[in-house]
């Protein structure tokens, strides 16, 4: 079975560990990812606030390229996932806009008929491939590891998607079945602030401090993330947060696919673990799964 892969701009640079681990996980589970050739930036939230038709046409190009190949898109970045899905929804909801976007695509020799669905890897893993098959293929147990499962905001909102908008559980179920302990984590859908870390740094630091604090006070070993934006905010700014709030966080921030890949038997480097800024190695015990 094959999925179309849309890495998005972040996964080419700061989000590299996510890219590496997503590819590894799907390979280990026996699924093929075909990267959409010559994909472009989805437009992200920054674009959305400038001119709507331009933003929509840009993300519609990705959908059009995918439609030509045929299949479902997997978009690991929560922001890309949200934008591409929103484009699909907006075009369906507003025929006038759809007409304009069609015209714009036509100028580039493309067409889009609205048939491509956009999926997040967490959704595909839990709902298509299934926890049962994943646990059956796991070779390492996560027993003894306490995870704070952080979904962030854009993965589960605004529309009701594959999980609950206030209290999602798909990641919790996945990792619990692999042996990990899900700690109580009331910040699971709190916003990391996204670009605010750059545009209103003070606010960004505070939001991320609060998330780290919730994980730490519930004794998590690691925060699992699903989005490159959340990841870099929580990981890259920890020392600055420590300085500002007089804390001593040293919390590993790990993409959920990195830990999943490791449980499925991949080596640390195959899931890009050494690319993370805060090492997790000493915290994963990694007993062998006994059946």
């Amino acid at each position, binding site marked *: 079975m094959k999925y179309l892969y849309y890495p998005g*701009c972040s996964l*080419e*640079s*700061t989000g*590299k*560990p996510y890219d590496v681990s997503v590819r590894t996980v799907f390979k280990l589970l026996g699924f093929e990812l075909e990267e959409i050739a*010559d*994909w*472009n*930036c989805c437009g*992200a*939230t*920054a*674009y*959305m*606030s*400038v*001119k*709507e*038709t*331009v933003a*929509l*046409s*840009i993300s519609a*190009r990705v959908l059009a390229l995918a439609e030509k190949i045929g299949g479902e898109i997997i978009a690991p970045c929560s922001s890309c996932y949200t934008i591409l899905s929103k484009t699909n929804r*907006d075009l369906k909801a*507003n025929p*006038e*806009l759809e007409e*304009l976007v069609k015209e*714009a*695509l036509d*100028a*580039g*020799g*493309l067409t889009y008929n609205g048939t491509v669905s956009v999926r997040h890897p967490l959704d595909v893993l839990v709902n298509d491939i299934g926890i049962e098959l994943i646990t059956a293929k796991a070779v390492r147990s996560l027993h003894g590891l306490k995870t704070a499962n952080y979904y962030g*905001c*854009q993965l589960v*909102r*605004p529309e009701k998607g594959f999980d609950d*908008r206030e209290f999602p559980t798909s990641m919790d179920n996945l990792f619990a079945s692999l042996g990990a302990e899900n700690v109580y984590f009331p910040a699971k*859908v*709190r*916003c990391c*602030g*996204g670009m*605010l870390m*750059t*545009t*209103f*740094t*003070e*606010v960004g630091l505070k*939001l991320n401090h609060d998330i780290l604090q919730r994980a730490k006070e519930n004794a998590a070993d690691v925060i699992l993330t699903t989005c490159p934006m959340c990841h870099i905010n929580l990981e*890259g*700014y920890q*020392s600055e947060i420590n300085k500002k709030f007089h804390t001593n966080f040293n919390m590993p921030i790990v993409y959920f696919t990195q830990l999943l890949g490791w449980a499925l038997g991949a080596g640390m480097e195959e899931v890009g673990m*050494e*690319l993370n*800024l805060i090492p997790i190695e000493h915290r994963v015990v990694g007993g062998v799964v006994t059946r």
Partner: protein
Amino acid sequence: MMEGDRVAFKLSTPGVLPKSERKLREEFLSQLELVPGGEKIKSCIQCGTCTGSCPVSYVMDISPREVIARFRIGDIESILKSRTIWVCASCYACTTRCPSGIRITDILYAMKRTAIEEGIFPSRFPVYTMSEGFVKNVNRYGRNHEMGLLVSFYLRTSPLKLLKMLPLGWRLFKRKRISFTPMKIKRLDQIKSIVAKAESQVMPSEKASIMVASTVGYGSTTEVKQRAAGAAQGGAK
């Protein structure tokens, strides 16, 4: 931290909007028409759930609930000048919880676009500078070059901050998580023609000549048009 300045609201004759306000209102209402379900703004019950759910309301000068309240009393200007619309992180917490189904996040986007259209924001304003840099980046390469974007952003807003970013940059660089050269897509020409076409398009809301909203300024332009059409046919609607 940020000064908690409140934007003063100027009183005018009750029920009658000043001309400048009416113009902003029209611009905003035409933006709002692009928001599916935008007209629901009228069913706000002022419960404050949005403000209570917002992770950044503590630094807003006008809370999300108050945005709607100010819209109602005809004070769009202060919303457009507020920090609120720029500090919103688009996390959709408010939209998810609003009991009246109001898409507050999208309303704030509409406000932002109105402010940009009208040029109402301080120069070199961080959020706008960021969006602008982002758009340029994507138009030039087809993809966003994270490092290029951040560097040009800091150079334009606060070069000192760029120095502060160096340690993080170095740590990421050592792990090959930063690229110095932008990734260019092959069919840049295609993107360019698509963008050029989209840029030249007239939005549905711009196409219909905007009618002056009623003096109290309620109702979307579509509604005003419909009412006008109804009146023209002699039917009392």
